[in-house]
Structures are given as structure tokens and as C-alpha cells.
């Protein structure tokens, strides 16, 4: 197992570098550059030129690449052009926010997704099942952007239950820890709702499918024939087995955990990784875009590895090596 993981990790290094190299060149193909921000009415055209010189954008592309590669190999991803900070400082500020958001979101997804999936499977073919199926498909195909705005209008503007943006109320710093967390949670209700809703719907469909397969197995019939309580049959015998492949989905959730929810963070004014990514692209902030790609690229690779390892662990039929 260990040698398998090691081999995969070593194999991932050139892959991540390949992704970064591609990103390096592709973003430079996009029209505009970071210095074009300084081309504004009333600002001397000299400024953009001086900034380009400082950013090293006047060097030939190959020279820029070699310099960049040299720095990256030493672990230096440079400074953000738009935020004038080392890129990893920018990311370090955003990661805790994104991770806490995503962890709660994933927990919600798994709790409600599994619950609804089981209900749907157990009540297969009933009105309840059909309602859940249709709702799941409806929610799954709803654009997050639109849903977020609707929730803001209903729950913030009309009902006034939840705040529409930011992480805390004005003056929250003076609250005690417990109250501060409560205030934070109140601000996170709407974004987490949007963030997890699509996942819940998807997962519910997946769990339903798995459960239906498992329920038809002989050992479930045996359990029922033994006269076991239906709850025990479903939750102890069926669900446990149905969940095995679901666990591996966790691996796939890892990149989402760190790379943030692009639109949700923008709409709800949450300063996480998603917003950094969006703003970096619009500002053509090359170092920040590359650092972001590095983080999400690495996580996708790690996530896939984790998924494979989890497969091996939960299903003894699969041998890694």
C-alpha cells in the first residue's frame, strides 16, 4: 500500500508541473495583462509601462518562464500583482474560511443526502419517492447564482431572518466566543444552504441507487426472514454496505473543499478561495492564478489518490499495487 501511494505521489509531480506550465502560458494568451489596470483616464501611460517592467512582463516569454520555474522550484510562487502580498499569504488568509464553509457544507451533504437517499429507496415507487426524485432533479439543475439571489431576496430582504453577506455582524468582535460563533453561523446559513443543496440532491440519488441494489441482496432477505426489526435491516445491514462506494466520493470532495465555491463566495461576500480565484482571473493576476491552480491541481490529484485508496480499504476485492 505504502509503495503504491509513494509511486502515485511521485508520478503526480510532473503532472502538476505540466498543469502549472500550461496555466502559465494559457493565462498569458488571454487579452489584457495585470498592468492594464493602470491604464485609466488621468493616469500617465508611463505607469503601466513601469509596472510591466517591475512585474517582469517585458521579458520574452521564455525568459519569464525560466525565471518563474526557478522561483517555483525554490518554493517561491511570487507576490500577487493585485494585492501586493506573497501569494501564499493571500491564500493562507482565505483557506480557513473556505475550509470551514466546505466542511460544514460536506457534512450537510452527507447527512441529508444519505438520509433522503435511504428514505427514497425504502419508499421506492411511492409518492414520497417520486416527489423526492423530482425535487432532487429540480434542485440539482438549478443555477447556484440564481438560487443564491432568490434566497437573499426571500430570507434577507423579505423575512429578515438571515444576513445577506459578510461573515459577522458589525460589532461582533466584542461578543464572547460562543456568541461570536453563533453570529458567524447565522451568516453562513444561506451560503451553506446553497453550497450543499446541489450536493444533497446528487448524493440522495446516488445513495438511493446503491440502496436499491443492496436491498435486493440475499442477505437482506435473510435478515428480514430472521424477523429482524426493519430499522436494523435498513440501517445496519443495508446502509452500511450501500455506503461503501459513497465513502469514496469524499476523495472527490477534497478539491472542492479548498478551492472554494466561486459564485457563492462572490454573492455572499465571503473572502474565501473561490473569490480569490475569480478576482485573480479578472485582474490577470498571474502569480495568484498559478498558485490557485497549484493548490487545486494538487488537491485533485490527492483527492483521486484518496478515492482509490479508500476503494481499496472499503472493498477488499480491489487490490492496490
Amino acid at each position, binding site marked *: 500500500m505504502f509503495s503504491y501511494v509513494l509511486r502515485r505521489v511521485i508520478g503526480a509531480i510532473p503532472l502538476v508541473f505540466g498543469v502549472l506550465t500550461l496555466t502559465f502560458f494559457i493565462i498569458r494568451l*488571454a*487579452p*489584457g495583462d495585470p498592468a*492594464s*489596470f*493602470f*491604464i*485609466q*483616464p*488621468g*493616469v*500617465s*501611460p*508611463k*505607469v503601466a509601462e*513601469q*509596472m510591466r517592467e*517591475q512585474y517582469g512582463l517585458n521579458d520574452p516569454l521564455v525568459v519569464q518562464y525560466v525565471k518563474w520555474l526557478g522561483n517555483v522550484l525554490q518554493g517561491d510562487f511570487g*507576490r500577487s500583482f*493585485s*494585492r*501586493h502580498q506573497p501569494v501564499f499569504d*493571500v491564500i493562507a*488568509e*482565505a483557506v480557513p474560511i473556505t475550509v470551514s464553509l466546505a466542511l460544514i457544507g460536506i457534512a450537510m451533504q452527507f447527512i441529508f443526502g444519505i438520509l433522503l437517499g435511504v428514505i427514497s429507496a425504502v419508499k421506492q415507487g411511492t409518492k414520497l419517492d417520486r416527489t423526492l426524485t423530482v425535487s432532487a432533479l429540480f434542485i440539482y439543475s438549478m443555477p447556484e447564482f440564481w438560487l443564491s*439571489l432568490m434566497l*437573499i*431576496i426571500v430570507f*434577507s*430582504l423579505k423575512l*429578515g431572518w438571515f*444576513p*445577506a*453577506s*459578510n*461573515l459577522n*455582524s*458589525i*460589532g*461582533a468582535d*466584542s*461578543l*464572547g466566543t460562543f*456568541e461570536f460563533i453563533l*453570529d458567524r453561523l447565522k451568516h453562513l446559513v444561506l451560503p451553506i444552504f446553497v453550497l450543499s443543496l446541489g450536493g444533497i440532491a446528487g448524493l440522495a440519488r446516488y445513495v438511493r441507487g446503491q440502496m436499491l441494489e443492496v436491498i435486493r441482496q440475499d442477505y437482506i432477505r435473510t435478515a428480514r426472514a430472521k424477523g429482524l426489526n426493519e430499522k436494523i435491516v435498513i440501517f445496519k445491514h443495508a446502509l452500511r454496505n450501500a455506503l461503501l462506494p459513497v465513502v469514496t466520493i469524499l476523495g472527490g470532495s477534497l478539491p472542492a473543499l479548498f478551492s472554494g465555491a466561486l459564485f457563492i463566495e*462572490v*454573492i*455572499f*461576500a465571503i*473572502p474565501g478561495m473561490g*473569490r*480569490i480565484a475569480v*478576482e485573480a482571473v*479578472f485582474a*490577470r493576476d498571474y502569480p495568484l492564478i498559478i498558485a490557485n491552480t497549484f493548490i487545486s491541481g494538487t488537491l485533485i490529484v490527492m483527492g483521486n489518490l484518496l478515492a482509490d485508496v479508500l476503494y481499496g480499504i472499503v472493498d477488499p476485492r480491489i487490490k492496490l499495487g
Partner: protein
Amino acid sequence: MTVNYSRVLFMLLMLFGAAACQKKQENKSQVANAMATTLVLADRSDVDNFNPVISSTVSGSTAISMIYPGITTGTFDTANGYLVYEPAIAKNWTISPDFKSITYNLRGDVKWTDGAPVTAHDFKFTYQLYGDPIIASARQEYVEDLVKRRDKNGKPTEEVDYDKAILAPNDTTLIFNFDKPVAKHLIEFHTALTPIPKHVWKDVKPSEFRASELNSNPTVSCGPFKFKEWKRQQEFTVVSNPAYNLPSPGKIPTVTMRVIPEYTTQLTQLKTGAIDVMEGIKPEDAIKIEKENPQIDIRTVKYRTYSYLMLSNIDCKAYQEGKQIKPHPLFGTKKTRLAIAMAIDREKILDGYYFGKYAELMTSPISPAFKWAFNSDIKPYPYDPKRAKELLAEDGWKVGSDGILERNGVKFSFTLMNSKGGTAGEYMAPIIQQSLKELGIECNIEVVEFNVFVKKAREHQLDASLNALGVGLEIDLASAFGSDLNKSYFNASGYINKRVDELNKLGQSKLTREEAAPYWKEFQQMFYDDVPFVPMFWSSRIVGYNKRVIGENPNILSVYNDLEKWTLSTMPVETAVK
């Protein structure tokens, strides 16, 4: 003894519940108290830094104006439409009779927040930073007229000679010297840059200037407010600076500016009272707020932004191939451009999008707010589709077999480019398309991302587009109308008229506004005659203020004008900073 666990648990829960309720009440009042004494502003993007030398965002300027002082205070004389300067750190000032020098007498009693006095040396030091090419300040143009270093032959070089250009003979005397006479208002404008404390910054090398920690943590400042904290991408907070004496500290104890990038979210927060001020409200929302939200005051600021239908005067293809200047095959003549101007019912857009009150028809690129220079004799092009047809016929356009106009085998068909997110443009484009269709002109609408749009416009790749441009407080036509297309970044139409260059120089070189005004008026007449593009609207900046804000006085300079004098009706009397 047997213990009834469920009873114990119930009692514990009751106790906990009661405590929680009490605590909740306390917390609620804590948050409410904080809100009552905090002015909450909002911006769509975060502050870039708190350093006046290198900040180049609007939110940055707003923050800086709260925590840094000015040598003078600029106010806008709405009757005449120009900036006038009032004493601030400078008690008074004199301009030499040859208009080549200004001497400021500074107050000696203004202090930085660490107690050190603000002196003439701070200004001299900061101006050197503004002019340093390594620092690359966006305001370096302001120092360009100062006395230059001489070469061996005594000819001025490009480099400012700070030893001669800015003199600080003592702490309270500051002298700026120029190589040539400069108009009074431009001298005052160019010497009003914000200072930073020399004693704090003197050891920071220019090459490390932009990376300095001080940019994000300006602990030493001197404004009606002082810096408290900056949570990046979330908010920054300033508090009233009790030591400020120009003339007095900010009255509201705390001001927070929150970053809310999404328009609808920000609007919701304004309506729910979570933020107090929002700028850039769309006309349709302003109308709704006026009807449905009595707690919000809608105010407008006129006019710093105009929109126009850009029609390339030059052949884009020829320009791409070796920068050749040839007339555009469709829009190369005045007559055709005028025909298009007369074919568009701009009143309809004015009523439909701006509700007839948040914009006015544009006649020229000089803002009607600059009354001293604005040529009010010029009237907007009339809406006259019949005359438009005649003009097109006079210009050689004939209806082709498919109903589309043709001239010398060239079909009158083009793409109207629009940038994503420009709501006014999204509204205008289909109306323009329809108006032109009635003339037999085929107009296809295309929308692209903003950066792509700007690049294409700047490189003259667009035949036609819907553009918007902001104007500075002092008139300068160079960047939008200069005939050197390599330098005039905003001359998207490729309008080339050497007389405009001359008028710009003449207007700027005259020593008084009275002398300069005729040149600006001549430019407007020339613009009207040449139709370099189709002028659309001067639009107001629409701002919403929660009614608990008292004393707001938005003007062309800022929607946060006189912020230090504002109060909140929710502030308990004792919390107001005297």
C-alpha cells in the same frame, strides 16, 4: 437515595435556557449598540492599500481621504463648475506673478497620530516618492511640470530636480517651483497631493516601497479618522481621531467599509439597513427604492461619466496591418456618422432606462457640471430618421437587393461590441440595432468580457461599440481625443484632428479659466461638427443613504464628501465626538 436523572437534566436545561436568553439579550444589545454608533459603507472591491502614493483604486482613495490630511481642501463650486481650494494644513498661499512658483505657509500645530508635527519636509519627501519611477505612482503626472534637472548644455532633462523644484526652508514653509508658467488652478491641483509621514517612511527603500507592511497598517496618519483594522477582502474600520484639528475630529465614532462584490447583495443590505450608503445604484432600482423604501434617501451626483456609441473613424484592418490610417469603409465620413446619430431615438432610451431623470443627453465630452467650460449653445443632435436616410443617400449609400444598404460593393453591416455587465449598454444595444435596421443597416450585437473589450477597443479592433468613460476634475483631452493613437489610449474611434491637440495645449496653458474657456468651447463645437462618435448620455451617479445618516453632502468629488461632519440619528448624544 435514588436520583431522578431526567428531573436533574430538565432543571439544568431550564437554567441553561434562562442563561442563554439573558445572554442573547445582552449580545443583541451589544451588536445593536455597535451598529448605532458605526457608519457602515460598502464597496464592490477591497482597498488595495492605505498609501496615497501607490493606491490606485476608488476604495483606496476613500479610505485615504479619511485618515490623511491635505495641504488644502478642494471643494467644488457648483455655480461655476470648478474646484476651489480652502486652507487646511496650509494657512495661506501665494502664487508668484510669473505663475512659476507657489509658496505655502503651513500651520505648525497639525500632528501625526504619534504626536510628531506635520511639516513641509513631509510634503517634500512624499513628492519625491510620487515622482519616483521605481515606485511608479499613478499620480506621477502631478510632478511633471516641476523644475527639471539640466544636462551639460543646460537643457532640461526628463528628471525632476527636487533640490530646486521643492523647497522646505523651515517646517512651515513649502515652495514648489515650475519650469514654465502654470495656470493657477493647475498649480493648486498639482501641489495638493496627500503627504505621508517622513519619519515613519524614510528608511523604506523605493524598491521595497510597494511591499512594505506599512501600506496595510498605517498606524501613523493624520485625518479626521484613524486606522483601526483591515480584514482583507472583508472590511476596514477607522475610528474618530480625537487629536485632529483641521478643523475637528470625525463626529461618528466608528466607520466601517465592507466589501460586498455582488450588486444585488449590496442593494439588499442597503434596504435591510445592514449598510448605510451604497453608490452606483441602477436607475430602475432607484425608482423602486424611492417608492418602497422610505428609510432610504436617493441622491444623485452629476456628471463624471458619459456613454457613447463608438464608430471607428479609421479602417480597423488597415490599422492592424502596419498602423495605416485610412477612413473606415462604413463610418469613415462625417455624414454617415451624423446619420447614425440622428437615427437613434436617444430620448426613448433616456426615458426607458434613466426614467428621464438620472441622465441627460450628451452634446460633447466636456461635462455640463464644468459650467465655466461647457458650451451650452450646442444642442443635442435631433432624432430625425428621415434626415438620416437623406444623409446616407447623399453619402452614396443605396439600398441593395436584400434591403441592406450598399456602397461600392460594401454592405452596411457591422458588429456592435458590448462589454459584459454593462447594463446601460445591454439596454441600448437592441434599440440602436432596431433604429439602424429601419435605415437598412445591419447591426449584429456581440458581448465580450470586460478585459477583452478594453484590449480590442484600445487596439482599434472594433468597428463599433458601446463605451463609457469617466472624466477628471480638470479638463484634459489628450487621452481620449489626442491624435497620436499610440498615446491616446481612450481614443477608441481613432479620431484624428490636429486642431484638437492644439486646443488642448492652449486650454491647459492659459493661466486663468476665463482665458482657457474659449478653447474648450471651440473644441466642443468641433466635436459637434465632426461627430467622432455618437454621444449618448451624461449619467448621474446614484447613491442611496439610510436616513439615519445626517449631513451627507454628495458632490462631484465624492459621495462621502464632508464625512467628518456626518452624524447618525441612532448615536446616543454622549457618543458623538465633539
